């Protein structure tokens, strides 16, 4: 370098390290520091509080670990590597942190719900039997009416929301000019719509149907409309994001083949974005399938099986879980067991949706190999 010609290097030299291995913490250092902080924190906590709380322990272990590895790496390696290690620690903690509630909810629901969940519970309509001699009413657990109600109400809401949502997203991404006022208004309002409390959506739908069909407006369909108000913005938003991720080059390639815009959108853009769109739709379904307040308001309540979405009350699994929890019979334990049973069934249902969506997404996903 010192022997360089008169052609000075074009830029000033930074003090880049010349070696390739300078300041490396050994590979085992991360697990070691982690274990160390776990032990130290456990000890300190025990001395300070004379008790042991797993949450507090995990939390402070993470903090001590991050500080420790950060400082250690700053000293031995450099600031950049320290940042890198700390961020990795943070990201992994975030993930573990999220696993805890997931496992906890699932375990809770499964443990609590498994007690009542069996084929009978799924395939029978919940009901009562009455013994005229003892005057005793016995409740027979059953969720069939709620399963059917869930499928009908959510199904209709999905059938309405998904096309509207996806078409709107298409309008926003594929058709509207950036400064089109309608586009601006809709992007904005869709965000606002995500903040509508679910109960207000229920009130809106019920008022609307009261205007149309008169006072006895309770029906599965009006509940579906309420759910649409909640679902559409989620579908629009996630679809919009996914459509924007489709590279423009693909659209151009298609246009250049003389493919009309509509076909390009359907067969190239949607196809490329399909997996993300499906994920968004499933998220939206999961979001609405657990709603209770709008269902009460718009579809009222029943224990009976009702297959007609356009008339009379309907029950859903979420409502069943909620009512059994909130308005138990005199046998509180049995009611709560039913509530958890319905909740477990609901989770299973959504997981099934999710699986189907996954399969669809995998089939449609862009492939590189």
């Amino acid at each position, binding site marked *: 370098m010192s022997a360089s010609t008169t052609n000075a290097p074009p830029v000033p030299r930074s003090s880049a390290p010349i070696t390739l291995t300078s300041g490396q913490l050994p590979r085992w250092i991360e697990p070691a520091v982690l274990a160390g902080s776990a032990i130290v924190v456990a000890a300190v906590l025990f001395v300070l509080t004379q008790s042991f709380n797993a949450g507090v322990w995990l939390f402070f272990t993470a903090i001590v670990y991050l500080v420790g590895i950060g400082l250690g790496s700053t000293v031995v390696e450099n600031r950049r590597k320290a940042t890198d290690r700390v961020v990795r620690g943070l990201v992994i903690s975030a993930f573990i942190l999220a696993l805890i509630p997931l496992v906890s909810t699932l375990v809770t629901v499964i443990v609590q719900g498994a007690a009542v969940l069996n084929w009978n519970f799924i395939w029978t309509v919940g009901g009562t039997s009455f013994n005229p001699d003892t005057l005793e009413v016995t409740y027979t657990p059953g969720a069939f009416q709620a399963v059917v109600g869930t499928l009908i109400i959510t199904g209709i809401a999905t059938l309405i929301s998904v096309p509207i949502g996806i078409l709107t997203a298409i309008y926003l991404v594929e058709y509207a000019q950036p400064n089109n006022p309608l586009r601006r208004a809709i992007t904005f309002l869709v965000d606002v719509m995500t903040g509508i409390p679910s109960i207000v959506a229920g009130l809106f739908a019920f008022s609307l149907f009261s205007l149309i069909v008169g006072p006895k407006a309770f029906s599965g369909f009006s509940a579906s409309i309420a759910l649409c108000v909640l679902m559409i913005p989620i579908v629009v938003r996630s679809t919009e994001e996914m459509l924007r991720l489709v590279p423009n080059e693909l659209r151009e390639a298609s*246009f250049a083949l003389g493919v009309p815009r509509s076909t390009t959108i359907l067969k190239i853009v949607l196809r490329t974005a399909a997996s993300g769109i499906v994920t968004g739709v499933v998220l939206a379904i999961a979001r609405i399938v657990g709603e209770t307040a709008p269902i009460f308001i718009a579809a009222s309540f029943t224990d009976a099986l009702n297959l007609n979405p356009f008339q009379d009350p309907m029950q859903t699994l979420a409502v069943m879980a909620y009512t059994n929890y909130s308005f138990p019979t005199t046998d509180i334990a049995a009611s709560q067991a039913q509530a958890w049973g319905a909740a477990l069934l609901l989770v299973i249902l959504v997981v099934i949706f999710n699986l189907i969506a996954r399969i669809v997404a995998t089939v449609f996903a862009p492939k590189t190999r």
Partner: protein
Amino acid sequence: MSKSIEVNNLNVYYGNFLAVEGVSMEIAPRSVTAFIGPSGCGKSTFLRTLNRMHEVIPGAHVEGDVLMDGDNLYGPGVDPVLVRRQVGMVFQRPNPFPTMSIKDNVLAGVRLNNKRISKSDADDLVEKSLKGANLWNEVRDRLDKPGAGLSGGQQQRLCIARAIAVSPQVLLMDEPCSALDPISTYAIEELIEELKSDYTIVIVTHNMQQASRVSDRTAFFNIAGTGKPGKLIEYNDTKAIFTTPNVQATEDYVSGRFG
């Protein structure tokens, strides 16, 4: 099967920015025309106005006429989709459809336009197009694999195969070989030679040798400075451009020692 193109005093704008100014030229059917010129002078921009592809960029618009066999591409009632079906295009960067197999990529133009094509016809078309793009031997045993798994050069040849599979009347190519190695480039150049008996071909290239080898006529574009519009400086038989250019700027540019 091929058409003449006549451009009259064309200005191209991106919003308010005039990118290309006052281009007039005539392109004969069954000929190869090369566009050369420094980066940013508006070659791609102008090329895209020949099949109205510039319209997909918000705010891009033209003033002036482009006549194909006398029909104004910008006349009232003209459907850009139909224009593009007759004026095919190959881009600078390869852009195969990531969701499709190699075979489906080649057939995309036919299939997306809802043409029903029998399996044997389809196979024939795929083979012919891929052979034309000199890709057949490399991919014949993995036609059902995704097109995105190919190397850059292979992808570009796949895109060329896709464009010629719909048998357009005019073929626009925007630096089609810039990502290709000499062997593929050679194949494409031969292909152009072949195609020109049926198609009108317009090619943008940075490669002077390529321009002189493949084209009948050459157009040299230049730009006075940043923010200034690109202009057609000289348009003539390729031989004349490379040996006896009329304009000093052209001579400066083509006499560079690069290739």
